[in-house]
């Protein structure tokens, strides 16, 4: 047998980049379009109230301040130009000063960003670990009679809206059994409950998809080949079944990124976690609209970036093109 020929053929396959440039560009364009869409929605939403400039200054502002904001955001121009000026200002990060804090809103948002990222990251990691474990047990667990229990439990938790789950967790673990702190003032223990809320919201869909994917991969040809070659069952399971079942999980993560971001807004509010989500809701209550716009824009950009990352990772992991 010619040993070199197949080897070089495989080598040629390996050299090809894992994702096509076309796919990458199309994802980038999509991401940019989404951010643009959010800014557009903000623009139109602001105009629903009549005079958008009045929203961006304090209620007791002088006419001069109002005029300055009107000029800065271009509200004195014809509607079409107004739109372009507004988009331009937002893209460059030029927001009017926050009404409550009297500083650049982006500055406040970036101060709060680490807390959001830590909570989101912890919840995400927990959701992946819990979801993969439950899915694994459900598909290949040793005791068929009981292996469906973890996934069913997670699915049951899915029916509980995250704000109420948060309230129940507070009632159970911070009040009835005073084990954990009530709110986000005392890290690092304080992260446990809010992260658990995000974890439980994420774990169920991951577990279901991983279970289906494992069952499908287990009956694939290459797995039967590996088995018939006499590779030990454990090796087959982990090297050929589990690894090849991870692709769909990454896709689910992309879909569920919205759950993490939406969940952050709610969860941070429930636990007074000092992140961007809570900042947005508080700013909304204070009618601090410059801060609301800045925070929402940052959240949207973060969401788009996460989606982009997930899409690229999914494409790199599974280049067969199952993703759209």
């Amino acid at each position, binding site marked *: 047998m010619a040993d070199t020929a197949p080897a070089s053929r495989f080598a040629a396959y390996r050299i090809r980049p894992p994702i096509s440039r076309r796919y990458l560009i199309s994802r980038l364009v999509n991401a940019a379009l*989404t951010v643009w869409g*959010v800014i557009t929605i903000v623009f139109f*939403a602001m105009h629903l109230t009549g005079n958008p400039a009045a929203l961006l200054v304090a209620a007791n502002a002088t006419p001069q301040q109002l005029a300055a904001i009107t000029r800065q955001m271009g509200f004195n121009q014809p509607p079409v130009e107004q739109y372009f000026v507004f988009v331009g200002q937002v893209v460059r990060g030029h927001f009017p000063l926050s009404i409550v804090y009297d500083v650049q809103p982006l500055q406040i948002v970036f101060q709060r960003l680490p807390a959001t990222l830590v909570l989101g990251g912890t919840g995400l990691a927990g959701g992946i670990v819990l979801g993969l474990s439950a899915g694994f047990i459900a598909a290949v667990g040793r005791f068929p009679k009981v292996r469906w229990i973890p996934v069913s439990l997670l699915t049951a938790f899915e029916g509980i*809206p995250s*704000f109420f789950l948060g309230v129940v967790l507070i009632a159970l673990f911070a009040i009835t059994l005073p084990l954990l702190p009530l709110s986000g003032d005392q890290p690092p223990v304080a992260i446990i409950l809010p992260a658990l809320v995000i974890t439980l919201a994420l774990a169920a869909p991951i577990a279901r998809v991983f279970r289906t994917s494992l069952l*499908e991969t287990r009956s694939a040809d290459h797995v039967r080949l590996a088995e018939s070659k006499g590779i030990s069952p454990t090796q087959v399971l982990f090297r050929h079944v589990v690894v090849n079942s991870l692709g769909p999980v990454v896709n689910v993560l992309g879909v569920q990124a919205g759950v993490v971001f939406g969940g952050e807004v709610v969860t941070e509010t429930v636990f007074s976690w000092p992140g961007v989500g809570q900042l947005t809701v508080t700013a909304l209550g204070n009618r601090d*609209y410059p801060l609301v716009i800045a925070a929402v824009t940052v959240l949207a950009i973060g969401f788009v970036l996460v989606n982009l990352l997930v899409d690229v990772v999914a494409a790199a992991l599974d280049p067969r093109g199952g993703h759209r």
Partner: protein
Amino acid sequence: MTLLDDQIVSVSSAPRAPRRHWWSATLPAIAALILIVIVGSVLLAHVIAPEGYNDQQITASYLPPTWFGGAHPLGTDDLGRDMLARLVYGGRAALGISSISALLATTLGLSLALASVIGGRFWDGLFGRLADVQLAIPAVLLALIVLAFAGDGLVPIVVVLTVGGWVLTFRIVRVHASRIIALPYIEAARLGGARSLALLRRHVLPATLPLLVVALTLNFSSILVLESSLSYLGLGVQPPQPDWGQMVAEGQAQLNGAYWVSIFPGILIVLTVVSVQILGDRIADHFSLTETVR
């Protein structure tokens, strides 16, 4: 060889017939019962609580539930208002807003799906892209933006919930309808001279009806969750008019002494959501649609 191969694969990867447990029949019955009780008492709110949702008795604040008998079987809140009255009136807001939005979202999704099936590549592409954009923005974020500026009226919140929910119906109906439209009997109807609209009404719409019912239940439960989350965040129905999500938020500060103010409305939300989901599953099962919906 290939034939045998295919057979083996199809045998080994065929989904096993779902095993029937005793609870697969009982659970939907329980769910239906719970829903009947909840919806019934919400509809009869003015009979159950003729004094209304804002009957304050400061001297009787935070009375614990007495369960059976007594003037306040489910206790009172911080202003001494009867919890039972607040719960049934809160249900009017939560369930009313959610069901109107779910109906609108399902109708919108259905119309756009049918239009994109019958309307050719251009409309199909346009609506598909619209759905992508919609999914690209988390519903809570979209709601925050719109409600921040549009205020707390009934119309903005219904619009936000409808816009947040139509994609689900659109996606599943579009896939289903495009399969139906490729079937021979549609071809036959077309050759018989049926116009597009008549074709949709007589042949496609009836075939999507079961799916539509399932989509409605899915829409309703996800919209109720979104509605109560927004209400919890202070967007939507404003005090003194109660809404379940808003009641959970109000009671959260007093979880320590008066758990019932926060926990009862939350339990009602969970019971409604889960019951509707179970019924939806049952309907999907009945029409063998489980695969289509997932």
